[in-house]
């Protein structure tokens, strides 16, 4: 166990009669990328905004970098960096001015020049904010989150509303930060994002954490099965395939066998043994691991993007 950079215990938040967050707990270690995955309105943003000191909590305990966001909001804000949802900058502020302005608010600063270079905004340094493309605005938002070389970064839906190519650009940036061992809390409703970028994920639904662990753990724990698709030189009966180790279901599709396995390594070993004994041969093999979407469906009976 490393040092917990961030701790949340039994966090509760109401908006009037609506219970947005109902007893969320998790902790994030130093150098970890932690994802909050869930549908819109699940309470991810509210949770993150409480951690950033933007909102008050109703009950529970929260600590970020050892600070209580409600008691020491100013000290906390010196230590964190954030790219929030639905924020913007004045239309007629230039890129470089924005970085300089925000850098001036912090005791610890990075050179705005370096950030421009790193985020590919050098050519846009004198461009007004309202003349930037969506991807450039988001890159600037990420660059601005780094002006104080923060201990913890919060990215709230960093790729929402961006086209696929720009989204990949943002993934590359976040992966680079991950390699640098930055502590990052990331909220998303994209499965791909959580699986690709996060060390650990908390799946949130209706204000509660319904599953927590590494993407791999979550998938195996939820009983989600791996899809093993094989083509054989000679046909085999479905009954034999079903009796292979770990297999829970078999279907024949276009001459290929689609096996759903809970323990793919064992399934493959027993398949190969069986084929050898029968003098049969394996023509092709494809393995598709389950996604967190499957986990979400398993836990809630709904798709994530409803």
């Amino acid at each position, binding site marked *: 166990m490393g040092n917990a950079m961030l701790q949340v215990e039994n966090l509760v938040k109401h908006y009037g009669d609506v219970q947005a967050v109902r007893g969320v707990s998790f902790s994030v270690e130093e150098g970890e990328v932690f994802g909050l995955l869930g549908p819109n309105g699940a309470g991810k943003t509210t949770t993150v905004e409480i951690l*950033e*000191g933007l909102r008050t909590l109703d009950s529970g305990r929260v600590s970020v970098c050892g600070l209580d966001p409600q008691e020491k909001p100013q000290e906390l804000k010196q230590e964190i960096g954030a790219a*929030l949802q639905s924020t913007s900058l*004045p239309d*007629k*502020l230039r890129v470089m001015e924005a970085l300089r*302005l*925000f850098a001036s608010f912090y005791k610890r600063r990075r050179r705005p020049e370096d950030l421009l270079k790193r985020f590919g905004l050098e050519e846009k340094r004198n461009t007004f904010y309202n003349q930037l493309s969506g991807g450039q605005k988001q890159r600037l938002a990420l660059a601005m989150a780094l002006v104080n070389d923060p201990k913890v970064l919060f990215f709230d839906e960093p790729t929402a509303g961006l086209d696929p190519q720009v989204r990949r650009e943002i993934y590359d940036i976040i992966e680079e930060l991950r390699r640098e061992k930055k502590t990052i809390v990331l909220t998303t409703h994209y499965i791909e994002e959580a699986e690709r970028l996060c060390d650990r994920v908390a799946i949130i639904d209706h204000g509660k954490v319904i599953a927590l662990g590494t993407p791999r753990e979550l998938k195996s724990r939820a009983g989600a099965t791996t899809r093993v698709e094989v083509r054989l030189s000679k046909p085999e009966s479905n009954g034999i395939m079903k009796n292979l180790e770990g297999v829970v279901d078999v279907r024949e599709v276009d001459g290929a066998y689609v096996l759903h396995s809970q323990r793919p390594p064992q399934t493959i070993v027993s398949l190969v043994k069986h084929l050898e004994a029968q003098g049969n041969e394996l023509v092709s093999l494809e393995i598709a691991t389950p996604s967190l979407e499957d986990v979400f469906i398993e836990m809630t009976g709904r798709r994530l993007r409803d």
Partner: protein
Amino acid sequence: MSNFASLTEMRIRLALRNKMFFFFSIVMPFIFFFGYLGFFGKSVPAGAAYFLGPVLALNVMGSFWGLSATIVMFREQGILRRFHVSPVTTSDILASSVVANLALTLPTVIFELLLAGLIFHVHTLHNLLGIFVLVAIGTISFASLGLVIASITNTMQETQVLNQLIWLPLVFLSGATFPLAYLPKVVQRVGLFLPATYLVNAFQQVIVNSATALSRYTEIASLVCWAILTFFLSMQLFRWEPETKIPRRAKLLVASTAIPFLLLGIWENRIDRILRESQTAFAAFQTALDSLRPAMRMSIQSGNAVNPSNHAPK
């Protein structure tokens, strides 16, 4: 550099890049300036001096208009939200707004004072210190009013409606557009409850009669009181997020800012000091214009003298 200083610099920079600012804060004041001093003041020193006060007051009071709109826009667009997650505080945002406004108002005022001296030969500007004290306190108090308006409205449209509702009585009942003494007696008495009336009168006394800032202590003290009250209130009611609701107590708190001028208005309605001062100033202005008339009459007569029809019957 402190947060306050860098925010002030940003606000000034953004205002100078804004076409609306250019029109409302630079073009309009000079239209008023030349209109009032040249046309209504008949381009004579006494007339120009009489109207310089209301023109400066209009200039200074206008600060609340743009400021409330800017803050509401910043909130609606999520710009304040971005600042909120940085170490910037409420007082950084509000104080920088007021100071940037003052910094943007000063060049126009200085230019107007120079033109008043050079073009209109207003030579009673002995008490520049008094004028600048009034410009500062006027801008600060009306800018704070703008901050309060921004806090108690949710959308740009609401803000503009409220701005209009406040602006019209302020400029029409205070002597800023029509001289107070020229208005019906009842309207004059209502005007005594408005901060604008005291600002206009103080400007006029300092410019026309070279009164010292110290001698205008009633006006200055009441405007200072009001500025502190409104600024404090804007701190209490400030909202970073568009979703945050306006608290119920807001109405009560906003009503409380009327107290200083309610009390002063009652007092002034009893002693009639401001009304007498404004009448004396207006009378002096009319006498000055009247003294022009004989000259004008003479020029007409001499013009007639040239007319052959006048010569003929002799």
